């Protein structure tokens, strides 16, 4: 069976110049050899700390930036090779909702036009049909068709995010990329939006790739989780398994750093040493070894670990612990 979304060895390197006269050039390895698969109708969460490459990865999937290397397929089609109508088809199939509801809607466009933009660009609809589709989309996200005449500044953050969602779903996409869709919202608003995402998924059957650094959101939304550290995936698997029995030391630290409202046990949290290294100058060996609480010796600092399948069928870890090395 062809998987819905298949990503293979995707990498993105940014050249950056520094110095007063921009003479020094460095490479930022924002995303390095990322591979995963996702089934239709499912939600994949990308988690990791700031700067670990989540957005870069998401943007590659959106074809907003070109990968340095690697490929990915949607429904078996190599996305890099899409042109003309196929590319247009891809554009209607893959949509996005971004983090900042204040920046993701053009302040000078009416809500109706914002939502209708995708239809205008990709479908040839009559005015009536278009209005119908836009109104439907607005209703689906809990806004009224009337709101179409207003400008974004007349809405609160949560409502703006709804508008963004309406414009993402109006073309009935198969995959929606959500880049931290609720982090900019107030706690009391977040749950409305998260529920909305779930409703939309059950209504349209679309898949999500959701970027998050809030683990609660991840657990609530995702079927599968990919944990990123410094541009690379370190653990990948089903959400429940990942949350209940994380295998990678980084995943463990991440989970323990998220302070729960009700503590379920009295295990002391794992406090990592040091800071996240710069992606310009990544550590040798296992990227995580300088901060790893379970550091087991030279092997960690000199060899990059390979993927290892953990227990259940669909859970992968990239750590020396548990391999023949460890």
């Amino acid at each position, binding site marked *: 069976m062809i998987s819905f979304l298949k990503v293979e060895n995707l990498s993105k390197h940014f050249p950056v110049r*520094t110095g007063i006269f921009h003479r*020094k050039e460095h490479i930022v390895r924002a995303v390095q050899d990322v591979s995963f698969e996702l089934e239709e109708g499912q939600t994949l969460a990308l988690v990791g700390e700031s700067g670990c490459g989540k957005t870069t990865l998401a943007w590659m999937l959106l074809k907003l930036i070109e990968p340095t290397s690697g490929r990915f397929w949607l429904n078996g089609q190599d996305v890099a090779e899409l042109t003309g109508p196929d590319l247009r088809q891809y554009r209607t199939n893959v949509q996005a909702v971004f983090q900042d509801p204040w920046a993701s809607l053009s302040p000078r466009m009416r809500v109706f036009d914002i939502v209708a933009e995708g239809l205008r660009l990709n479908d040839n609809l009559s005015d009536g049909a278009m209005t119908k589709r836009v109104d439907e989309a607005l209703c689906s996200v809990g806004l009224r068709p009337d709101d179409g005449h207003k400008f974004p500044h007349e809405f609160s953050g949560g409502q703006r995010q709804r508008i963004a969602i309406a414009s993402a779903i109006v073309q009935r996409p198969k995959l929606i990329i959500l880049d931290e869709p609720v982090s900019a919202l107030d706690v009391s608003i977040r749950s409305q939006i998260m529920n909305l995402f779930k409703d939309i998924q059950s209504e349209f059957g679309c898949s999500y790739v959701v970027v998050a650094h809030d683990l609660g959101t991840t657990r609530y939304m995702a079927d599968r989780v990919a944990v990123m550290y410094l541009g690379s995936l370190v653990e990948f698997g089903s959400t429940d398994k990942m949350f209940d029995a994380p295998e990678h030391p980084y995943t463990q630290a991440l989970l323990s750093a998220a302070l729960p409202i009700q503590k379920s046990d009295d295990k002391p949290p794992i406090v990592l040493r040091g800071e996240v290294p710069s992606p310009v100058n990544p550590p040798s060996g296992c990227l995580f070894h300088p901060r790893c609480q379970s550091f087991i010796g030279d092997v960690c600092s000199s060899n990059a670990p390979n993927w290892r399948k953990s227990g259940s069928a669909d859970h992968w870890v990239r750590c020396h612990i548990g391999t023949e090395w460890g």
Partner: protein
Amino acid sequence: MSLFVVTIVVFSLSHLTGDPVDAMLPDDATQQQIEDLTKHLGLDRPYHVQYVTFIGNALRGDFGQSTKWRGKSASTVVLERLPATLKLGGLAILISVVASIPLGVLAAVYRNSPLDRGASVIALLGQSLPAFWLAIVLMWIFAVTLGWFPTSGLGGLSYMILPAVAMAWFQVAALTRLTRSAMLEVLDSEYVKFAKVKGLTENVVIWKHAFRNAAIVPVTYFGVLAGSLLTGSVVIETVFAWPGTGLLALEAIRGRDFPVVQFVVLFFAVFYLFANLVIDVVYGLIDPRIRQD
């Protein structure tokens, strides 16, 4: 690169703007006189040859002989007049800075106070009065009527005050506004707030923390300032008969003394570009974020 384009512009000046021979010759010059002079000045050669010669000579600092100021090279004529302009411009900058920086800072600190309103009136007036008009009025009031300063001409500080004030007038307005808005922005920043909650006194917060950051904006304006003082010098020097490069440029253009015009324009452009370069460096000194490697 910029300089290259500037040299082309400067060179074409002489050809865009008519024959220098016209200006040099008397009304009743003969054809023979015209041809002789044209040849004498090398104006009979093709443009590109003239341009190459021009660049070649310019690189050696040789812009040719002034046609109006006989017996002097264009560069001598200009450089002779330069100190006067620099002195006047320097004083004008000094006045602008001394008057506007504190005013702008205080206006921002005491926002919406009478002081702030006063500052904005000054800024408004400064931007609304044509400099030449102000210059004439200043001269009549302070030199002719009150007799406090000499009316015009080259001389010591007392001679420079009126023209410098007239020159600085607009800049005071511009800098005050700029400083004020930069200060307002900085005063709103977290680090100023943090400096305050650290327990620093108001003065330290304003001058050490806020001003140093706000100063970046007026500093970047200095490039424009330097440039506009040179350009402004044309008008002010004309009115106050101040023998600087501005007045010189005016005379040279009127007399179509192209070697001098070319040198002045090129000099102004280089000066402006250089001033901006200096400002970039100063900028780096003020703002460590720029000088990082």
